[in-house]
């Protein structure tokens, strides 16, 4: 089970695009944190799963003491129950100090960093309460973060405001040493036709850069391309794994209430589906409702050629945030995918024709393994 644990509703930034609702100082209590850990571990044990705790917010580092206590308690309970506990965190990184890194190291807590590219792109949205950009403070920490975890993942949000800097921003992150990037458009913003045209221009530049990096042997991950390639390569299997809302993934609010996903943790609003709480457990019919709705065919995607795993139209809570319906994607999402799918196909086709070794290894690991194991490969200089 992957439990996204919202330790607080508070944050040290005020990014306009934030989807986690109003920022107010309500932290998860120590008692709720302990109970949440036990609830997740028990559920994981019952279903033969690992217990994955992904700390979320607000900014989870604003509730570091609770985080620390919860990790220690979860480790102890997991050991007693014979469950493997794993810790993750989404953070803006600004509050992380050396002592925190030592704790993360000791407890294998891996964090994903929210950073929107270079300074122009990042500061366009990610600002403090007083309106100042947060890039400068974060940039100072990047070398140490990347030293701490060379595989650190960056999470980037693209909006109509920071859109013009997208290609430069992504290039900056790769140059800075990031190897794993997740780019997500905020599809709840007022996108226009002009924005979509600019998006296309920016993604063409991103494609050019990514192609060049793969050609020179950089082993990177950029979800805009890799997810589409891998989902195509996986075939039908690739379609079913992308949204596990209400099944193997839940969000736990500071109050202990359980919601299907992060976007729904808005306790100041009474319009979102609550699935229960960590004391009473799941409300069965609510869980069934959300599962049925999230697995229902998306409208109007059924007869779309891209609805074969290449289109990122599976995020139930994203649809709900944009259109009020789980089964209806936002126009902006559809436009985004109609721009991105052909670009990803084209770059993938080029790499396939060139028999790019990194592309082949990513998509067809069994073939790559055979070629690696062949003893004459090295002598002939064959691709790995």
């Amino acid at each position, binding site marked *: 089970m*992957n439990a996204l644990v919202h330790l607080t509703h508070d944050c040290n930034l005020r990014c306009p695009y934030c989807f986690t609702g109003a920022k107010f100082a309500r932290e998860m209590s120590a008692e709720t944190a302990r109970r949440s850990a036990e609830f997740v571990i028990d559920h994981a044990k019952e279903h033969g799963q690992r217990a994955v705790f992904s700390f979320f917010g607000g900014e989870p580092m604003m509730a570091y003491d609770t985080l620390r206590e919860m990790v220690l308690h979860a480790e102890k309970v997991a050991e007693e129950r014979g469950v*493997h506990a794993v810790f993750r965190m*989404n953070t803006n990184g600004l509050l992380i100090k050396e002592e925190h890194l030592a704790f993360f190291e000791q407890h294998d807590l*891996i964090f*994903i960093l929210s950073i929107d590219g270079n300074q122009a792109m990042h500061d366009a949205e990610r600002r403090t309460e007083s309106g100042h950009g947060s890039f400068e403070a974060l940039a100072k920490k990047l070398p140490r973060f990347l030293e701490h975890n060379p*595989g650190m*993942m960056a999470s980037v949000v693209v909006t109509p405001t920071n859109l013009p800097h997208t290609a430069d921003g992504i290039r900056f992150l790769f140059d800075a040493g990031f190897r794993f990037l997740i780019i997500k458009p905020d599809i709840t*913003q*007022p*996108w*226009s*036709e002009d924005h979509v045209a600019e998006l296309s221009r920016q993604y063409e530049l991103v494609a050019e850069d990514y192609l060049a990096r793969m050609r020179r042997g950089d082993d990177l991950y950029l979800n805009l391309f890799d997810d589409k390639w891998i989902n*195509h390569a*996986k075939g039908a299997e690739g379609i079913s*794994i*992308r949204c*596990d*809302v209400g099944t193997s*993934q839940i969000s736990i609010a500071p109050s202990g209430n359980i919601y299907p996903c*992060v976007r729904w943790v808005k306790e100041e609003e009474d*319009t979102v*589906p609550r699935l229960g709480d960590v004391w009473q457990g799941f409300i069965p019919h609510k869980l069934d409702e959300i599962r049925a*709705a999230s697995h229902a065919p998306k*409208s109007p*995607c059924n007869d779309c*050629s*891209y609805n074969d795993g*290449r289109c990122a139209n599976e*995020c139930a*809570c994203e649809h709900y945030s*944009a*259109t*009020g*319906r*789980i089964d209806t994607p*936002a*126009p902006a999402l*559809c436009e985004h995918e*109609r721009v991105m*799918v052909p670009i990803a*196909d*084209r770059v*993938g*086709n080029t*790499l396939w024709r060139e*028999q790019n070794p990194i592309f*082949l290894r990513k998509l*067809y690991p*069994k*073939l*790559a393994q*055979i*070629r*690696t194991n*062949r*003893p*004459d*490969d*090295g002598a002939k200089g*064959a691709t790995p």
Partner: protein
Amino acid sequence: MKKKLPVLGKPTPAASQRGLAAKPVKSGASRPEFPTRGEAYLKAGLLGGATLLAGCGGSAPAPKQPAPVTEPAPVAQEPAPTPTTTQQVATDQPAVPPQQAQQSMPPPPPDQGPPPPPPVDPALLVNGSIDGQPLASQMPKFKVHREGGGIGPAEDMWDPSEVEAYVSWQMAKEGKLALKSNYQLDFDGVQLTLAGYDPDKNIGYAYYDKFGGDTAAPKDVHAKLDGWMKANKAAILLIEVGRVPDTATMKGKIMKFMTQVKKHPPATGPLSASAS
């Protein structure tokens, strides 16, 4: 009929996306030229019971009309892939289903174990070996792949045996060691299963991988290993993989350790009568 969900009670963000629409792509849709895994593996002989491995993937031209995954062509009708020196199956013979092949093969002679490994030229072992075999010319690699996801973080996954293979290769090469895998060490009150160990040079490593379900080595084991190292009895590197393993970091650890070992090598010969 669409199922009604909780009402937001205000215009949705989608209403502000003027001029944009969610509309299916039906004609002129882009298509990948690269095959699915099912198609690629079928062509490579990895699916459908065939055993031919070569002539696929890295050296294959892009298929113009990939075979449908749902109705794969019978393997026997597939053109035979290009033979290589490592191939063990004659390519001029049509592939036969495994069951049929098994029936047509003569039964193995009774009470006969696996054939002994071919003799290895000792000259090939001087630069390092693993379980009596010379090191592969190409460094083994391990792959970290991602699974899961959604809006939460996806999981990084790896195969601990691949990481071990990488560490053994690096260590054997760097120290010209004759490593034995899964070596059971019983010395000085400590019992350890070492992933790789040279019992003559008394150099090796223990591998703990949380992903593989290992718990980290206890602190008293750490202390013992430090003590052996200082006393030049044995040099054992503890590799504890908790977060995503990374070749550069792993190699750095090995190099640092081997540099230290080269400066103060442990005494050679049997460590103790109780070491097996």
